């Protein structure tokens, strides 16, 4: 089965396995992937890729970003495939493979891979392995904690799925060991929850959640959702269109209903309940009347994590795939056994071999590496232009991509956080953004802006030759800017008036030696301005820093280290998580199965208890 899973992964990635970076919507895999600042609880980005971004970053340092990401994606498909086949216990091999294909090659997963929602992909892969444990959370607390932690390591996408499963298990158990179970499940979420809370406190915006509603138009649209369709962004949905998808989705759903009682008794009923809830929540944003309520709830800072209700669909798919295999086995006949695999393959075929072109490898133009080299040699804040969070990138075959400059360059890159869904919305906590906008307006009208950029602390301006960059040509004629790199793909300007990362009120440049992102040694000085985004919690020694009028950090008089104290809470949360993980692992090793577990009572052929 593992070999089949790896082959499935290879079939999904296809051309992506050739050398090259990956660029497709949120899939921004650059040669060197920086550590997400959210890992420390630092903005300005929302804490995406937390904490699994660490793995990508360390892996990219050891090998390269694309190699690590591609291995991870193939592994995710393989793990999802094998996990689903294991849930279809007691069925013939053909039906088990059908369960694996239906789950691991679902248009849901292919779409998320193509869109670069790596947290969702990783959570989806782990889900079939975690379901039996998390749906019986009171049986073994250590196991519950470890599986909840495994899902939490994929970020909030997986963490929320883990919490949903644990809650369902608690309801089914009528609250048995509720306090301990809930405590363990919530504590397991610390790796993404604590940094998320810290960034949220710093003040972050969220876009209008009604834009992320599941796409289900009419009867065919509704029936396509069980088949893994319905992603809010129509052009990012991988897979076919039309009635065929709906028919195949209906067949899989019908088979799953027929086979639901043949799933292992220990979790079959609970999984069916969770699946119903998952499908209901996924569709909630598409149902008139309910969608307004859902939008109101998810429009808040707390509810924003689930603003895209389609992310609940894995709770349904993880039940449907093995249940459909069981249904095929129940209806009997060799031909019917192959129905789940046939349906799943027909649904997946348009998205196989590179997710319909989204995973074509990309080589960054030469100007990018030249600019990166220049910035590495003389580091400083970079302003990324044109001012778009997402833009069509010509060398990525014109695909819409999250601005790749912050990941490609690393360090402090000031770029737009406006997804352009609603006029003037921002999704980051970077307080410098509002001060950049008037400057950009002046650039478009041909004004000189170098001094303003220096005041904000910008040392470099990168102007990508993409989308609407041409009105920004006037940067070339600004005498305060020096063009360092000029290429067909971009231009790099240096702000002549930039003095240093930390400058006192008298204009003296202060030496800074960064240790890690939330900690740096700043030489003794009077009042000074540190050109990095402000956030509540920065200190110099034991004195609090403040936000400057341009959104940077104003350091008080002092010496020693400047540090971001909320990062201590984040680090403590990580240490506690590691300790709890080790302890839970030991508890599982010590576990004496004096009472036969449900696994041991289960007939391996039928999946039923005896």
């Amino acid at each position, binding site marked *: 089965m593992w070999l089949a899973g790896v082959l499935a992964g290879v079939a999904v990635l296809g051309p992506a396995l050739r050398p090259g970076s990956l660029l497709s919507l949120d899939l921004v895999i650059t040669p060197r992937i920086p550590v997400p600042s959210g890992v420390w609880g630092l903005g300005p980005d929302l804490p995406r890729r937390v904490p699994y971004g660490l793995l990508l970053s360390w892996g990219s340092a050891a090998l390269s970003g694309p190699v690590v990401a591609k291995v991870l994606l193939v592994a995710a498909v393989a793990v999802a495939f094998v996990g689903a086949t294991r849930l279809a216990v007691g069925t013939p091999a053909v039906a088990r493979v059908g369960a694996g294909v239906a789950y691991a090659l679902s248009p849901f997963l292919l779409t998320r891979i193509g869109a670069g929602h790596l947290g969702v992909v990783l959570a989806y892969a782990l889900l079939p392995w975690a379901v039996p444990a998390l749906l019986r959370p009171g049986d073994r607390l250590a196991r519950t904690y470890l599986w909840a932690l495994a899902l939490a390591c994929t970020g909030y996408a997986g963490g929320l799925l883990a919490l949903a499963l644990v809650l*369902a298990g608690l309801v*089914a158990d009528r609250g048995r060991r509720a306090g301990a179970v809930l405590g363990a499940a919530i504590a397991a979420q610390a790796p993404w929850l604590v940094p998320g809370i810290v960034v949220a406190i710093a003040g972050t915006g969220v876009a209008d959640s009604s*834009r992320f509603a599941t796409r289900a138009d009419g*009867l*065919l649209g509704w*029936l396509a959702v069980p088949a893994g369709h319905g992603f809010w*962004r*129509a*052009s*990012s*949905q*991988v*897979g*076919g*269109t*039309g*009635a*065929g*998808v*709906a*028919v*195949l989705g*209906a*067949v899989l759903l*019908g*088979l799953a*209903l*027929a086979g639901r*009682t043949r799933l292992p008794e220990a979790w079959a*009923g*609970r999984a*069916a*309940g969770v699946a*119903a809830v998952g499908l209901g929540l996924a569709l909630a944003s598409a149902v008139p009347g309910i969608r307004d309520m859902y939008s109101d709830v998810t429009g808040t800072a707390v509810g924003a994590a689930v603003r895209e209700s389609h992310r609940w669909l894995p709770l349904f798919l993880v039940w449907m795939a093995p249940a459909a295999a069981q249904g095929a086995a129940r*209806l*009997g*006949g060799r031909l*019917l056994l192959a*129905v789940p695999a*046939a*349906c799943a393959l*027909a*649904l997946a*075929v*348009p*998205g196989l071999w590179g997710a*319909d*072109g989204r995973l074509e490898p990309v080589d960054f133009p030469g100007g990018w590496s030249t600019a990166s080299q220049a910035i590495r040699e003389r580091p400083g804040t970079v302003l990324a232009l044109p001012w*778009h*969070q*997402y*833009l*069509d990138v010509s060398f990525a075959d*014109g695909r*819409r991509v999250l601005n790749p400059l912050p990941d490609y360059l690393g360090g402090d890159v000031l770029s737009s956080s406006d*997804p*352009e869904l609603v006029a003037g919305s921002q999704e980051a906590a970077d307080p410098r953004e509002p001060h950049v906008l008037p400057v950009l307006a002046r650039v*478009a009208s041909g004004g000189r802006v170098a001094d303003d950029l220096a005041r904000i602390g910008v040392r470099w301006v990168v102007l990508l030759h993409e*989308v*609407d960059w041409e009105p920004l040509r006037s940067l070339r004629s600004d005498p305060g800017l020096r063009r360092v790199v000029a290429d067909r793909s971009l231009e790099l300007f240096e702000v002549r008036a930039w003095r240093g990362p930390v400058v006192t009120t008298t204009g003296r440049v202060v030496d800074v030696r960064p240790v890690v992102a939330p900690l740096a040694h700043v030489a003794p000085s009077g009042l000074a301005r540190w050109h990095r985004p402000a956030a509540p919690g920065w200190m110099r020694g034991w004195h609090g820093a403040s936000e400057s009028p341009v959104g940077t950090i104003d350091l008080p008089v002092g010496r020693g280290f400047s540090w971001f104290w909320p990062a201590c809470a984040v680090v403590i949360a990580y240490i506690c998580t590691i300790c709890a993980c080790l302890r839970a692992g030991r508890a599982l090793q010590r576990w004496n199965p004096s009472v036969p577990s449900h696994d041991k009572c289960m007939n391996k052929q039928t999946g039923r208890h005896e």
Partner: protein
Amino acid sequence: MNRLIRVLLLGAVAFGIVLAVTAAPSSGGTRGQSGYGDDTVPPCREDQSGQEASAECLAFLETQVAEPASATDDSGNTVEYLIYGVGVLVVFGGVTYFYSKSHFKISFPWS
């Protein structure tokens, strides 16, 4: 009855597979645009004077207004959808009938 259901199910699967693999894949978006929104729709931004949406956007909207009308008039599409609907209902009905005939019991899913 069991045989009938199998035949119906296999027929639906074959029908669905043919439709699914012959349908066009999800369309790509427009080029040279920006934003997280659906790139099948050009952004309708106001120009700098705040007066009017772009001509490209307006042209797109006009096309979109015209298309549903022609789709509704296309009796072929309507019949096609009706056939699909009946097919889906038959499959659902068959599976449900088989299920209720052989294992008719109502159980609470949490039990």
